[in-house]
């Protein structure tokens, strides 16, 4: 092999390897694929940048190509999606600008129904915004206000402590006076009323109250025996009530029997009416016979009858 051949072979083979690698990379990255452009709209362009990734289920499927401000003051965001990923963009797809607290802002695509029709390229879709930073600030704001109040209160307390005429120092002074007084008195009560005789009276009153309470306790015990004892009132009442309940049961049976008799009587009365009607008919018939007989007798000259 000549030197020229070796050099030629080296250059050609290495160049082919490099070009093949670059072409493969370009192809896999979608450089030769058809790109679809969709337009989104937003009220604000905050956080939006050209080249920002468009993500579906955590995968990059495209990027923001241009940002424009239209006549109505709306920001128009043009996103480019390669043909490979166009299947994820549907008519019901939602586009959300996600600005995380940490990390790169991105447009997140969510498609609930993948069977819905494809999103037309000329349709302008409104983009929503999720802002972790502002959300965090909103959540932290009340907390900061509370912390500020606590700090103010702590400052107030420390100022009060530092001030000899402050409330806390006065309280401490008073506490010192109380403890000093307490150390010279026999009891807290004596310190409170500041008179030994009054303390004695209170003690006597308390003793009497104790005696009264003891008596009330004994009365309550007796009442308990009388009411709830074996021969007490309540057990007797219970027995009487049980007796009454037994008698009432018997009375129920008697009432039932009376009701039955009444019913039977009512039914008997029906027969009686029929009997009376028959008697009435018989009497009427006899009456008619008597009348006929009377007429017959009255029509004869000799109203004498020869009886057999």
């Amino acid at each position, binding site marked *: 092999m000549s*030197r020229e051949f070796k050099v030629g072979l080296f250059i050609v083979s290495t160049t082919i390897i490099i070009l093949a*690698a670059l072409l493969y990379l370009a192809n896999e*990255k979608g450089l030769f694929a058809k790109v679809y452009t969709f337009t989104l709209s937003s009220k604000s362009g905050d956080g939006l940048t050209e080249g920002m990734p468009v993500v579906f289920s955590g995968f990059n499927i495209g990027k923001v190509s241009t940002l424009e401000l239209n006549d109505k003051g709306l920001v128009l965001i043009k996103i480019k999606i390669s043909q490979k990923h166009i299947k994820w963009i549907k008519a019901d797809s939602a586009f959300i600008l996600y600005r995380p607290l940490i990390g790169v802002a991105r447009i997140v695509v969510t498609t609930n129904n993948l069977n819905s029709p494809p999103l037309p390229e000329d349709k302008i879709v409104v983009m929503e915004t999720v802002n972790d930073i502002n959300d965090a600030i909103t959540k932290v704001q009340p907390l900061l206000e509370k912390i500020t109040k606590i700090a103010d209160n702590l400052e107030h307390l420390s100022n009060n402590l530092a001030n000899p005429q402050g409330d806390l120092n006065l309280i401490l002074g008073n506490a010192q006076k109380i403890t000093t007084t307490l150390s010279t008195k026999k009891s807290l009560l004596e310190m409170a009323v500041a008179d030994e005789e009054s303390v004695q009276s209170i003690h006597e009153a308390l003793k009497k109250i104790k005696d009264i309470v003891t008596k009330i306790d004994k009365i309550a015990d007796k009442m308990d025996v009388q009411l709830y004892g074996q021969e007490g009132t309540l057990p007797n009442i219970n027995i009487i009530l049980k007796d009454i309940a037994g008698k009432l049961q018997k009375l129920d049976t008697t009432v039932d029997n009376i009701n039955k008799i009444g019913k039977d009587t009512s039914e008997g009365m029906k027969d009686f009416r029929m009997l009376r009607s028959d008697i009435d008919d018989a009497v009427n018939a006899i009456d008619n016979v008597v009348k006929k007989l009377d007429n017959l007798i009255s029509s004869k000259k000799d109203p004498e009858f020869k009886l057999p």
Partner: protein
Amino acid sequence: MDLLENIGRMGRKTAMSFIETISFAGMVIFRMFQPRTYNSAMRTVLINQIYFTSVQILPVFIFVSIVLGSFLIGIVFQLLKQMGLTGYFGNVLMGLIVAELSPFFTVLFITLRSASAINTEMAVMKVNGEIKTLEIFRIDVINYLLVPRIINGIISLVLLSSLFSIVLMFSGILFSWIIFDISVDVYSNILLSSANFSDMVISLIKCAVFGFFITLIPIRFGLRASREFTSIPIVVSSGMVNVFTAIIIIEVLSLITKLF
């Protein structure tokens, strides 16, 4: 006062040297784009240069790439695993090892082997009066000596650095399987998602710039030699120092480019 004078003199000298190097580079680039530069003699020199710089060392280079690259990837992957940064191994492999370390190791390799040789060759030719002889015979020194070596530097650096990257990526398959228990498919997907096309192009351009300057600077310093043999080590030494300075400056500039 003397100190300030010395600092001023050094600064002026450095600035002049920088301007001269840039104007020299401009002249060489202009010649590179002239079709008449590529005559048969130049083409022969170019083929010889590529042969000596790339083809002749190819077995050694591939062996070094496999050994060095494998150890490098193994150590980096192990560190990532220990630090719990397994998810970033694709970015580290593509962004650091392939895009940064491959061109750097390649340029160091070529500089130590070829740039020093070119520097010495030019200095010796200058001392022996060969350059003067060529000029007497009306042979264009830039076209005959300089342009083939510089084009060789560009081609060799780009191709060898790419080979180094490819070897590293293949080593990565083995080590990601051993260390992370990652299959070839998953490895390919991670590499693809981590690979940035613009970074690759910047990396190739950086290699070309490396190749240009690691041959241009030794040639330029070699041609500064006087008629005395004692001037050879001086120009070779200063030439190599300047080459390494240029490598660092280009590396920093490429990092700045990536930042934006």
